[in-house]
Every structure is written in structure tokens, then in C-alpha cells.
């Protein structure tokens, strides 16, 4: 597989799935639930396809070596490609947020915080979910890289979680007049999820490195994943008035232009996560290899 094919598989195909649907929604101003759900489903399917391609080189069992050889260029080009895509998507996102998306009639300019705040929160969920998936891979398949990958994903999740809490607090201050509302289930459950995964590092650094630590951390990461759907569905369960429900079964409660801007911002944040995740992972792997080399030379 050459580099051009990889670029097509990883970026052009997902965007080609998403953009026509977004443009259709944008021009028709939300033609209804089916169009929006269809768009989201198409985007989800394309990203599952991308995920399968990304996971294949790390597969176990017969034929995995051949697959690894087949997809070897992926490892070499994935990081610069992700970084380039992140830069391009962020440039597009900033342009759309400040020069394209209409100003909200109720909240005014401060509503534009939504375009970064919500994608950051969703990316935090993705990070924790990815960390839990890798934890499961560690316990189930005994994948040797899974423990480190789970740790890095959760680390990224805590970073995105911190940004979610900070941007959310700033938005709360301008919209509601307070930095924090303890009576809002969505806020409190996100904080619980954040603190749960922040405590993961206390557990990890209190146990000596080895199989036992990896197992304990994997079980802990898997327990936390239960909180993700609860936190995500909190608005729907509590029917909170203060924290409005933007995505309903009737589609997103916003104009097509706003939804397009939001989607590009979400892609930008997911790309940022992929870039930072791969960068940190490369650094951690290099650190481990260096330690091993030092021990061999001692």
C-alpha cells in the first residue's frame, strides 16, 4: 500500500462521506432527523473503517506478520499525516467559527465557545473509551503494547477533560453568571468521570511496574468506562433546563451552518487527539527502549 492510498483511506474517504451530507444539511437547513442521523451514521461507519485499518497492523495470530509488513508504511507516515490534517482542520475550524457560523440570537458571541467546548468534551469521552478498549485488549489478548496505549489514551483524556472543565466554566460564567452549578447532573457527572480517571495515575504510580500493575490499571480503566454513557446521557435523563439538550432524536438543534462548523471542529479535535496520542506514545516507547539498551550496556 503506497502513501497516496493511505492518505485516501485515512482522510479523503471519511471526509468524502461526511462533507456532502453536511453540505446538504447546510443548504436545506435541517431537512429532518433522517438526513442528520444518516450523515452521522455515514461518518461513524467511515471512521470505523479507518479504525479497522489502523488496528490491522497490530493484530495477533497467524498472518499478522505479513499484515504488519503490508501496512508497514502506516507506522512511518501516520504521525506527520495526522499533524498535517490537524493543522488544516484547525485552520478551517477557526475560520468557520469566527467568519462563517452565524451569531446566536440569545447568547451572542459567547455561544461560539460551544464549537470548541463540546468537541473537546466528546474527544475526552473518546480518549477514555479508547483507553478502556486498550485495557480490554490487555486483559483479553495479552497485547504487549496495550497497557502503554491505554495509559497514554487516559492521559490524553485527562488533558481534554481539564480543557472541557475550564472552557465550560468560562462559558457558564458568561451564560449563567456562575463558574459552576452543583445541581446540574451533566457537570457533576463529568467531574466524577474526570476525577475517576485522574485517580488512575495515583494507582499506576503507587504500584511497581510489571504485569500486576498493568492488570490492576486495566481493570480500573474498564470500570471507569461505565461512567461515559451515564455522563453523556445525563442531560437526557435529568431533563436539565440550565444545560440545554442540543442533540435530540430530531437532529441537532442548530442551523446547518452551525452544524457544519461544529462537525469540522469535532474532526479537528479528534485529529488533535490522534496526533498527541501518537506523539506521546512514540516518546514513551523510545524511553522504554532506551532503558532496555542502558541495562544491556551496563
Amino acid at each position, binding site marked *: 500500500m503506497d502513501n497516496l492510498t493511505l492518505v485516501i483511506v485515512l482522510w479523503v474517504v471519511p471526509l468524502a462521506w461526511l462533507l456532502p451530507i453536511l453540505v446538504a444539511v447546510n443548504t436545506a437547513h435541517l431537512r429532518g432527523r433522517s438526513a442528520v442521523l444518516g450523515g452521522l451514521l455515514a461518518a461513524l461507519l467511515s471512521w470505523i473503517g479507518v479504525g479497522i485499518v489502523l488496528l490491522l497492523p497490530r493484530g495477533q495470530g497467524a498472518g499478522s506478520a505479513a499484515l504488519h509488513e503490508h501496512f508497514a508504511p502506516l507506522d512511518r507516515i501516520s504521525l506527520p499525516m495526522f499533524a498535517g490534517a490537524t493543522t488544516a482542520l484547525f485552520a478551517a475550524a477557526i475560520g468557520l467559527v469566527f467568519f462563517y457560523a452565524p451569531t446566536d440570537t440569545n447568547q451572542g458571541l459567547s455561544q461560539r465557545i460551544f464549537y470548541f467546548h463540546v468537541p473537546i468534551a466528546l474527544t475526552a469521552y473518546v480518549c477514555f473509551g479508547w483507553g478502556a478498549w486498550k485495557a480490554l485488549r490487555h486483559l483479553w489478548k495479552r497485547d504487549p503494547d496495550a497497557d502503554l496505549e491505554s495509559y497514554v489514551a487516559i492521559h490524553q483524556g485527562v488533558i481534554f477533560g481539564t480543557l472541557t472543565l475550564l*472552557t465550560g466554566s*468560562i462559558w457558564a460564567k458568561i451564560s449563567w453568571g456562575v463558574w459552576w452549578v452543583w445541581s446540574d447532573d451533566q457537570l457533576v457527572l463529568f467531574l466524577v468521570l474526570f476525577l475517576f480517571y485522574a485517580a488512575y495515575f495515583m494507582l499506576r504510580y503507587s504500584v511497581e511496574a510489571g504485569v500486576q500493575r498493568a492488570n490492576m490499571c486495566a481493570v480500573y480503566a474498564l470500570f471507569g468506562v461505565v461512567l461515559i454513557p451515564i455522563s453523556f446521557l445525563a442531560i437526557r435523563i435529568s431533563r436539565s433546563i440550565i444545560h440545554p439538550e442540543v442533540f435530540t432524536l430530531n437532529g441537532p438543534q442548530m442551523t446547518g451552518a452551525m452544524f457544519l462548523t461544529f462537525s469540522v471542529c469535532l474532526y479537528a479535535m479528534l485529529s488533535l487527539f490522534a496526533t498527541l496520542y501518537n506523539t506521546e506514545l512514540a516518546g514513551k516507547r523510545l524511553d522504554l527502549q532506551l532503558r532496555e539498551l542502558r541495562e544491556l550496556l551496563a
Partner: protein
Amino acid sequence: MTPSEKYTAAAYLVVFVGVLAYVLIIASKLQRLQRQVGELVETVRDREASQRVEGTVEREATERG
């Protein structure tokens, strides 16, 4: 600047400062790794040099003996 503009700017600034701080931390870690690689290269070079000296001494001793 209106309060709305100030808070919006602050929210976006927090995100960019956060990402930049993370990049700074990663950059410092990479610098540390680079230094460690340099130290290991030096160790290997010193070891090779000492092995070469030992080999020369042994050869001279054999020739004399």
C-alpha cells in the same frame, strides 16, 4: 471589549495555551531522550576504544612472548 468578547477570547486562549503547554512538555521530554541517546553513544564509543587498546596491548605482549 464587551464581557462576552472577553470570555470567548479567554475560552479559546485556554485551549491554545493548554495545547502549547503540552507541546512544551513533550518537547522537553524529547530533548531529554536525545541527551540520553547521546550519552549511550558516548558509552559505546568509550567501550570500543578501551577494547581496541586492550587488544593492542595483548597483541604486543604476544609478539614479545
